[in-house]
């Protein structure tokens, strides 16, 4: 009766994001973490010629697989690029409109796709938890035509009010809000990808809209993990779970050290033609 499949929350989000990537587009991806792994997975399975830039100025590298440990701190991350430039240069390319998609990770996100990567708490100078800061996320989210955000679906992450808005989505959602503060026209968040749901944004209201749900989850399950209530698309799609092929590639070749793909484990079983989640184990209990 069962065909079991086990994957982590991060693996699911990386797989869903990698499936969205197109070979005829140019990507500006965060220099490490799930966004980089998504583009690397896509290059192996879906779009081998996909080109991406990272903010150290590396343009269209071809990182070898299996990827090196601590890849952000290796020369291999920049190997076989077409050009080695610098941060200002790739930001200029984004400012000119060459970069179609930015792919970024977020700590918190609100209903208009604004996001936080700076701190949690209510006092900027005395943070409950301080993070590294936006890095290049603010320019990437402002200058690329479309932004794809990756995060976990949790109430503390999908919040009504961000503790700090590091990087822009549609700001207050009003027409022309981004242009009024100096951002290029016709840009903004495009997708928010999590382990069990994918969101887009409503053309009119700019509100986050649930587009697809994993078959082992449900709309109610998704809404229960969000502090704000999103719109729900009329033609809600089902997210095919990660395949064995995708997971094998991810684990053996894209993140062989397992540092980034680690997360809470989800185990699915098929029963009566339906996928359901039978086990969800927090990352901490894996050892």
């Amino acid at each position, binding site marked *: 009766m069962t065909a079991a499949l086990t994957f982590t929350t991060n693996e699911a989000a990386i797989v869903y994001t990698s499936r969205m990537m197109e070979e005829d587009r140019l990507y500006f991806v965060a220099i490490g973490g799930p966004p980089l792994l998504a583009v690397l997975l896509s290059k192996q399975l879906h779009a081998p010629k996909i080109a991406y830039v990272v903010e150290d100025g590396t343009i269209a590298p071809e990182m070898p697989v299996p990827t090196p440990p601590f890849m952000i701190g290796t020369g291999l991350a920049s190997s076989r690029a077409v050009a080695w430039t610098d941060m200002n240069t790739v*930001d200029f390319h984004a400012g000119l409109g060459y970069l179609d998609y930015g792919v970024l990770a977020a700590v918190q996100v609100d209903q208009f796709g604004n996001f936080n990567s*700076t701190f949690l708490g209510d006092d900027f100078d005395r943070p409950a938890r301080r993070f590294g800061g936006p890095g290049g996320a*603010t320019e990437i989210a402002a200058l690329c035509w479309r932004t794809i955000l990756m995060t976990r679906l949790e109430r503390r992450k999908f919040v009504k009010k961000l503790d700090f808005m590091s990087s822009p989505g549609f700001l207050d959602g009003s027409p022309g809000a981004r242009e009024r503060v100096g951002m290029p026209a016709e840009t903004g968040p495009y997708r928010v990808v999590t382990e069990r749901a994918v969101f887009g944004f409503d053309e009119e209201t700019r509100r986050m809209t649930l587009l697809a749900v994993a078959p082992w989850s449900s709309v109610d399950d998704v809404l229960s993990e969000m502090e704000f209530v999103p719109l729900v698309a009329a033609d809600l799609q089902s997210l095919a779970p990660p395949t064995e092929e995708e997971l094998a590639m991810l684990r053996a070749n894209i993140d062989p050290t397992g540092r980034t793909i680690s997360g809470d484990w989800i185990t699915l079983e098929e029963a009566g033609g339906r996928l359901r989640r039978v086990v969800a184990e927090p990352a901490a209990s894996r050892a």
Partner: protein
Amino acid sequence: MASPNGKTIAVLDEGIGAYRQPDPDGMRRFVRDHKDRRLVDKRMTEQDAVSRFVDDGAYVSYDTNVWRRGPSSLMREVIRQRKRDLWLAAKFSTHDATLLTAGGCVSKIDVGWMEVGRVITEAMNAGRLKLYEWTNGALAYRHLAGALGVPFLPLRYVGGTDVFRNSGAKLIEDPYTGQSVCLVPAVNPDVALIHVNQCDMYGNARIFGPGLAPVETAMASKRVILSTEEIIDTEEIRKHPGATTLPYYLVDAVVHAPFGGYPGTVPGLYGADLQHLMEFGVAQAQGKMDEYLEKWVFSVSSHTEMLEKRVGLEKLNLLRAGETHTEGYYT
């Protein structure tokens, strides 16, 4: 601001973050009066370079970071000399800012991105460290403004965010298009610390591989200290002028520092010492940064002594041998 046609350019909004007043003429005067145009031998020890050119209270910019082609040996010397009250530009910094903060050297950081753990959080909560928000790109761009000798540059991001609110950016109505555009102030650091692959004794320098903003950082800064893996002949520089990243007159000090990027990588030459980076992470998590700094900084008198006594030839050889991918750097 009044424009020549008598109309006023409106400042629509501005952040509350502190920044040093841009002073392009001050920078020009400094260059006129203090930067040597002659080809002079600038080789000196790391002790001399840091003691001469890094003052307490200085604004310090570095390139790249401790993971990758960073001026790590110079940073350890800054800590060893117990410099105080520094203001750092953390444009894609890694744990450089943490090390300097743990060493008691830092009171302000302009943040794009940096590795943050207990050291930074505890210093902030104790009121010893103030952060100003920018982004990696905005900081690199402020260095570009400094390098161009202009007081500010317009840019099309940061507006509308809390980064804007906590930075020194302004939002204005562009007098050409009438649209909104942000401005960021130029930064002219007091001193830049840059690790390079090769340079001659005068400071003509080559950097291989992608970088953050080494050229802008060197041009914008009043003083430039280079640490270099290798000192090469000027004849070699003159044979391949297209390979020169920085010309000599930008540079004040040349410090010969093989493995100067240790524990990070200098791509094409040696890999990062992951064991050391783990030791750093563990020391921070356990609140034992003092012990870490004692071992790697204070208990040795120089970079060379640290390599000899704390790292050892065997490890150094392994790090070199492990860097098998050299394509594009020295080939």
